[in-house]
């Protein structure tokens, strides 16, 4: 379970930075980019306590 959450957490970080990169190279629209970033934000805070060492404490 912890491994899955950790993978999801890193996926969340990916959602924070990959969509802006795709927007920069004009492969993604602005609203979609912002939507993915928001999803990444929620996913990060939901999973980070298990992904970061000591985060759950």
């Amino acid at each position, binding site marked *: 379970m912890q491994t899955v959450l950790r993978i999801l957490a890193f996926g*969340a*970080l990916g959602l*924070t*930075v990959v*969509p*802006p*990169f795709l*927007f*920069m*190279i*004009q492969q993604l629209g602005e609203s979609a*980019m*912002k*939507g993915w*970033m*928001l999803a*990444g*934000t929620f996913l*990060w*805070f939901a999973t*980070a*306590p298990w992904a*970061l*060492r*000591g*985060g759950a*404490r």
Partner: protein
Amino acid sequence: MRDADAQPNRGSDCCATAMNETVPASTPSPAHAGDEFEREPVPPHALKGPTAFWGMYAGEHTAGTEFMIGPLFVAWGVNAFDLLVGLLVGNLLAVLSWRYITAPIATRYRLTLYYQLERICGRKLVVLYNLANGILFCFLAGAMITVSATAVGVPFPHIQMPTFQDTLPTNAAWCVTVLALGALMTFVAIRGYGFVARVGHLAAPWMFLVFVACGLVMLGKLGTFNLVELLTPAEGHESRIGFWGVVFFAWFCNAAMHIGMSDLSVLRFARKPSYGWASAAGMFLGHYIAWICAALLLVYWVREKGVDPSQGMAPGPMVWDAVGWAGLICVIIAGWTTANPTIYRAGLAFQSLYPRMSRATGTLIAGTICTLAGMFPAVAMKLLDFVGLYGTTLAPVGAVILAEVYLARRFGLPQEWATATGSSFNPAVLLAWAIPLGLFYWAYLHWGIFPSYLTLPVYLLTGVLYLILARVLHGRTAATARG
């Protein structure tokens, strides 16, 4: 180190103050009582590995105030070379300061700055240092509340956002927003900031990536990847600081922490002095990449939306425009998680003046001052100046420690004078700190010199004066004490 809760979240960045230093040894933070080794060297079993330091420095130097500092460089007309190379050089000098000035002393004695100072200058003078720290913390936290309020205000059109030129509250709605935020932060600080510190810890990697995202989006919107071209100010926009201004700012925005020695409290947990290199994570991620990404936000608004660079734009609307809700959440969390421990520690500093005062009362006083300061955008909008004042005011005590450690014996001076004589007040330290500082404030107020230019002269003068004054005032006392 944060993982093990050995150190509190120290707040933000250049503003990352040595918060643990404000805590009098007799009033340890409740969350950390018993494991901070405040009046004894850190024992070998409590030492931490290098990853804790890399993580901590990377996290604490990416904060809400970064959203202000990057755009302020643009507003000040700093050109591309000065910014890109000046920041590189200044941050490198900051890292070297941590590595070769702070870390060796921290790992040699393994004491907090507070306790080391107390042994040299006595408890009463440390209380004075705490007071200065507490007051400066209040204004710093006020700036963080201001930054957060610009994000909270985005969905509410009645709130008039401050510009870089604003020093007074913009309208009643702005005051209400800051008041509500400040009250909330103060309430949380009174309850203890453990939860907020944890959120800050969790948010750190994500916050850095939001800065990167802002930079990427701006490059996309500006339609070029040529940073040099983008960061070149428009014709006729005169630069307020040049290459050396950027170098000295980047070097000394954390002066209180490295040459000012407040990071003794952090690095005393390091196994080796080489852990001082970990500060590079904070400097080159937070104070290089994040500042440049934040600067691009204002570049876009100047070029595409016709904003006057000297008027600037509040961070909230710029980040909202760039990355939407994720950006607003980032600005609020960045401000909140850094302002909260600042208010908490300022409260403890005030409490140290009146030991009978409860911590809650001290925090309430600090929170009230912070909130009032936050209503006035002056501090946030003049952050480049304020950070220089902050560093120059607090860093000189580090020169006293440096002189004590490396030169006192060579000059035949007493070491740890206050402990040796049982005195609670060392006039040599007070004069050595106050005289250069008085000259500095006079020069700043009369000539308007950029404060970061004067940090090093004030620091060196303090060290030299301490050696002279200790010789003149304590030479005989020390001989008696030794005899």
